[in-house]
């Protein structure tokens, strides 16, 4: 089906473990984004990508790593998870950096 999907939808992990959240879109959008959503903070940009092999930091990039070898995929890795990274993570895509963004369903991550 066309659209933007995220996996897993729910994840529980322990402090210090590596976790990878997946994001896949079928629109061939050039831009993709990762946000985290916490109560009181709204959505905060972690990283974005303007095209395959082009990524850049957002507002809160520390502790996260991204890659984009293919246009349709934009995985987000937490190299050593911390409790402060417990959050809901949304992936989004857009045909332009300033244009409307289409959000995936989100991944609820809990770090114990």
């Amino acid at each position, binding site marked *: 089906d066309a659209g933007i999907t995220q996996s897993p939808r729910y994840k529980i992990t322990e402090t210090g473990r590596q976790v990878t959240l997946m994001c896949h879109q079928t629109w061939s959008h050039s831009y993709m*984004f990762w*946000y985290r959503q916490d109560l009181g*903070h*709204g959505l905060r940009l972690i990283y974005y990508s303007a095209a395959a092999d082009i990524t850049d930091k957002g507002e809160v990039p520390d502790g996260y790593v991204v890659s984009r070898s293919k246009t349709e995929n934009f995985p987000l890795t937490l190299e050593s998870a911390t409790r402060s990274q417990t959050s809901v993570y949304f992936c989004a895509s857009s045909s332009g950096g*300033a244009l409307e963004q289409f959000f995936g369903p*989100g991944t609820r991550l809990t770090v114990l």
Partner: protein
Amino acid sequence: QQPVQSPQAVILREGEDAVINCSSSKALYSVHWYRQKHGEAPVFLMILLKGGEQKGHEKISASFNEKKQQSSLYLTASQLSYSGTYFCGTYYRGPNDMRFGAGTRLTVKP
């Protein structure tokens, strides 16, 4: 840099109107508005560029005051389906400058 939204929450009866404001301390290139229902992803409503006013979704419209660096979202004759949290996203110079407000929780009651 996070834009300030007001009010934080509002409760309406069906058919009533509401205004949600979004203010920035920096010069804006554009403002995005999104609605998010509980447990779901944010859904795009509209984009406003400098000096522009766009009616993009049902009975929802918005304005952008360039002098005040403020955008307002107008919901008229509210319906139950309008309930949710509304976020403004402010775009300054580039994609890494995108910032979202903390949200306005709108509840429409019968």
